[in-house]
């Protein structure tokens, strides 16, 4: 039986990927951040998942404005790296798992989650930066990756509650797959940040800390945070945190916090990271 064994929450700030790609990780600006992810990389190497389900958002790269799916599951064999405007990141192409993705689609839709099926898709920093942070810079990614793209670009994003419920449905879907697989679910984006308008640069460490605390203590509370509260308290782009709730939902009722890291800044972002194991 396939099992969701753990969840990873992490920011996916594009500047982090650029720092790695341009050899800047030892610079004073970046060193504390990459040091903070070292224990996480060790945990990931030890955990060695067979499959990662990567909950992230596309930033107007795979999807233009013709079609904006709320929940889109990547069912392809390969996902090429997008050129977001400065050339593609020099990282390996992402290998999917079409058979398992097809199973997830069937299970989720019959479980009343109306997923969009994506058979060709480029992936951007929202997906590749978390891979880099947790797996480093290998020649090939060490596991297969199923992308789950959530619309957080055009308001409204799906609510935290809906994301949490979809996570729970993903847990059920994974458990009904016969192959013996270790699955880790990522929730990416956030934490507090705003990258637009005169209010750009907003951060809220108090909000972020409470969010990190309650991922293990009281995820139900987090699932009831209304969209306006993210926007007002934690910045226009902090709405990405609903994707962390999708990850949390997939871990089942109990999750134990294994590691956390918090750091300001990466570009305009308060970077947060957490590892939770399903119990």
């Amino acid at each position, binding site marked *: 039986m396939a099992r969701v064994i753990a969840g990873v929450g992490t920011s996916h700030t*594009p*500047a982090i990927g650029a720092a790695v790609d341009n050899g800047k990780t030892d610079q004073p*600006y970046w060193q504390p951040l990459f040091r903070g992810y070292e224990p996480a990389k060790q945990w990931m190497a030890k955990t060695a998942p067979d499959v990662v389900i990567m909950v992230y958002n596309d*930033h*107007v*790269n795979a999807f*233009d*404005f013709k079609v904006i799916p709320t929940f889109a599951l990547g069912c392809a064999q390969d996902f090429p790296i*997008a*050129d*977001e*405007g*400065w*050339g593609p990141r020099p990282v390996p192409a992402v290998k999917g798992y079409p058979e398992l993705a097809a199973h997830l689609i069937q299970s989720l839709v019959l479980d009343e989650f109306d997923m969009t099926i994506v058979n060709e898709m480029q992936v951007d920093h929202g997906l590749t930066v978390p891979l880099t942070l947790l797996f480093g810079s290998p020649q090939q990614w060490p596991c297969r990756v199923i992308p789950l793209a959530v619309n957080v*670009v*055009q*308001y*409204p994003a799906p609510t935290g509650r809906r994301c949490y419920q979809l996570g729970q449905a993903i847990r059920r879907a994974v458990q009904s797959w016969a192959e013996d697989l270790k699955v880790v679910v990522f929730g990416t984006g956030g934490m*507090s940040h*705003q*990258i*637009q*308008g*005169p*209010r*750009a*640069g*907003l*951060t*809220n*460490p108090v*909000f972020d800390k409470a969010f990190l605390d309650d991922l293990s203590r009281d995820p139900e509370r987090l699932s009831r945070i209304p969209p*306006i509260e993210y*926007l*007002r*308290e*934690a*910045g*226009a*782009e902090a709405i990405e945190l609903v994707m962390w709730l999708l990850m949390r939902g997939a871990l089942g009722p109990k999750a134990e916090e294994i590691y956390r890291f918090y750091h*300001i*800044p990466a*570009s*305009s972002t*308060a970077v947060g990271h957490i590892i939770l194991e399903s119990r």
Partner: protein
Amino acid sequence: MVADKPYEDIPGTWIFDAERARAGYHLNQFLYTLMQEENRKAFLADERAYLAKFKLSEAQRAAVLERDWNRLLELGAVVYALAKLAFTDGRSYQYMASQMTGMSETEYVDMMLKGGRSPDGWRSKSEREKH
């Protein structure tokens, strides 16, 4: 027209909602084309000619030429598409964000290194006026 827009009360912020997305559709589709290197080159070679291929309003066209970032947000550009214009100019997200705040990039980076902007005084328009 969606009646309930509580986010319109957040100062210094343009939430990319359905109405703004509709107004900005062609603007954002123009920005999307800057994902490709040959388009970036063609745009920089003759911005007006390149823009003529898209159904932009005069105000949108002028704001692109002037790199009037906040005006572009107001006219329906979404920030992630707008970033492609900054990248085409050889600039970063951080540069674009600093321009939107009216700070120099150095001042903006300094603010972030000190922990970023506190939400105090920035939660609502009325709170902003008192501040």
